[in-house]
């Protein structure tokens, strides 16, 4: 059997060019299929890891997925705010352990600014109950202090003490800058692999301070109030975008959720982040499945390419098989020579595809983080991926069965008479 594999190898080497093309096409299809699968699971992991610890997310009345996206993942925008009074009232509900307010709407060079309270740094957790860590510095304390996510600091090259100016709105190029009230970086968080890394954290009062004298999203002419004047005003926030709730016991979750959804003063929505994520997956699942199906078809096309090259070479190889038979090869040998070639080509294609996949993942990892906030773990294969690889290999063997069987029949019937 080793001899036959060696023969198969030499025969393939003799047809280097077509074999290489076949291997490349199978490799590309394998990389595509595994890549789609990898992005799918990794993006799910990344999303799932983004929030843990909070039982409910509350925002102005909207769809649960939209609320989840803008409050936790910083994707999209809130349609409405929550009044400070409602926030305070709900915080005082029975069963509530802690709340974290979130106020969004400003940015700095494309990174979103989030107003919150100091307890955010104690309570917020991601992945499996991991708390935020400071790489350097401390939480904000003063009105004009900011804490940077690790990616912000790294990408922009900011360190402690750096003075930054926030912009109104969330675009990369902002129209209006809050340049009269610069902030000082006092802390930088350790990497989390979540949107926290792309966020600039300031206090709720800071958000209020930079917008003082503004009306309808633009500064009022002649109403500019200097940074020091604001400091003396002892500002209180008037509204926030959303907030996270942790309950004393998860048993109360549905009760509190209902109470918030039926809140009289203001139309609000409370969601369970896990449930909303599930809804999101269902929504995305259709597109994902379509993508997987297309990738699977591409693999099938790649294997058909191999089948075609094996089949077209078959007639000219009848002579080769008769020679092998004359020196004592069994029909089974001849059969396994073809199967061996199919297996070698498929396996090489898979190997090439895997190398390609990891190369691309290594290249894509920083891009996905900076452009989509998507953290991709470069890990070993999951059992599902191994299953996919196994199926592709078996499909390769099955593709080899067709020409293998044909040549087997030939070798039984041709005998020593070779048709040319």
């Amino acid at each position, binding site marked *: 059997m080793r001899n036959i594999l060696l023969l198969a190898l030499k025969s393939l080497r003799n047809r280097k060019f077509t074999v290489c093309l076949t291997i490349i096409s199978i490799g590309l299809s394998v990389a595509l299929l595994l890549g789609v699968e990898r992005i799918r699971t990794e993006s799910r992991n990344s999303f799932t890891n983004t929030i843990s610890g909070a039982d409910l997310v509350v925002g102005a009345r909207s769809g649960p997925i939209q609320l989840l996206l803008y409050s936790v993942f910083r994707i999209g925008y809130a349609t409405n705010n929550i009044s400070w009074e409602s926030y305070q009232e709900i915080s005082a509900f029975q069963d509530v352990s802690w709340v974290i307010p979130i106020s969004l709407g400003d940015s700095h060079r494309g990174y979103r600014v989030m107003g919150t309270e100091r307890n955010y740094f104690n309570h917020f957790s991601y992945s499996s109950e991991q708390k935020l860590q400071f790489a350097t510095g401390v939480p904000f304390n003063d009105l004009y202090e900011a804490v940077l996510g690790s990616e912000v600091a790294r990408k922009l090259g900011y360190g402690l003490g750096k003075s930054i100016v926030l912009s109104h709105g969330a675009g990369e190029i902002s129209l209006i800058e809050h340049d009269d009230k610069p902030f000082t970086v006092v802390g930088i968080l350790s990497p989390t692999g979540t949107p926290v890394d792309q966020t600039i954290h300031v206090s709720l009062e800071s958000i209020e301070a930079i917008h003082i004298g503004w009306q309808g999203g633009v500064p009022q002419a002649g109403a500019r109030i200097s940074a020091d004047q604001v400091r003396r005003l002892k500002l209180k926030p008037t509204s926030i975008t959303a907030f996270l709730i942790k309950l004393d016991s998860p048993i109360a979750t549905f009760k509190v959720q209902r109470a918030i959804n039926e809140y009289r003063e203001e139309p609000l929505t409370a969601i369970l982040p896990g449930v909303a994520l599930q809804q999101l997956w269902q929504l995305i699942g259709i597109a994902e499945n379509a993508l997987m199906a297309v990738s699977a078809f591409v693999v099938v096309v790649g294997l058909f390419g191999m089948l075609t090259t094996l089949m077209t070479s078959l007639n000219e190889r009848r002579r080769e098989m008769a020679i092998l038979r004359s020196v004592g090869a*069994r029909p089974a*040998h001849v059969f396994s020579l073809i199967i061996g070639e199919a297996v070698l080509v498929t396996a090489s294609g898979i190997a090439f595809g895997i190398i390609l996949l990891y190369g691309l993942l290594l290249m894509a990892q920083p891009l996905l983080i900076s452009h989509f906030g998507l953290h991709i773990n470069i890990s070993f294969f999951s059992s599902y991926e191994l299953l996919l690889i196994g199926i592709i290999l078996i499909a390769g063997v099955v593709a080899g069965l067709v020409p293998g069987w044909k040549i087997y029949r030939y070798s039984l019937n041709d005998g*020593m008479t070779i048709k040319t």
Partner: protein
Amino acid sequence: MQDQTALKSTNSLSSNIGTEPVIDLTGLCFSYSEKASPILEIDRFQVHSGEMLFIMGPSGSGKSTLLSIITGILLPQQGEVKILGQSFSQLSGPARDRFRADNIGYIFQMFNLIPYLSVVENVILPCQFSSSRKKRTGNHSSSIRHEALRLLTHLNLQDPGLLSQPVVELSVGQQQRVAAARALIGHPKLVIADEPTSSLDTEHRESFLRLLFDECLKSGATLIFVSHDTTLASLFSRVIELKKINMAPGASGGGKT
């Protein structure tokens, strides 16, 4: 033509007395499918050890078919095929394949070589499928290679430049000599050649045959040579016309050339 007599004398019948025939066919009947009329019907056909046998017959008369039966690739519907005392009807397919690998060297009409193997790799191919032929060449890859080179040298293929060439670039005559070396390696008891000279010119035909005879004599192999080219017949110790032993009415070979 002097060696013609020399060959005949080495092949005296006295050396065969008491030994079993190399090939012994009795009551043989073969057709490619059940519906088709038989191509071969042979009552009795024997070849003795050390013979240099020439089987003559026009194209389509069933020469290659007969060789397929002798090598155990095809099984007759009726009759007994006994090669070197071994009855094929008692052997399974793989056992016949092993028997062929161990005992028979085969040369085709044309295109004898596997295109993706080197000259030497082509020659030592039978040793990959037969441990006894491997053993007879010394069992070591170095000694097998040595034996291949020795055979090639005998067949006037010693030029190292030639040996490193891709086999498809060799001339037809050179390819046939490589094929002869492959048929002879590991001293098979039976060497079968199916019109190996039909693509060579007269001069090369004779020199090729002479080399083949020489090597078969040296290793004590029995040679069966099949051709429609009657001019070669005089070189052999025995000549048989296929139609003389084949009683099948269908296989006249008529109409084909």
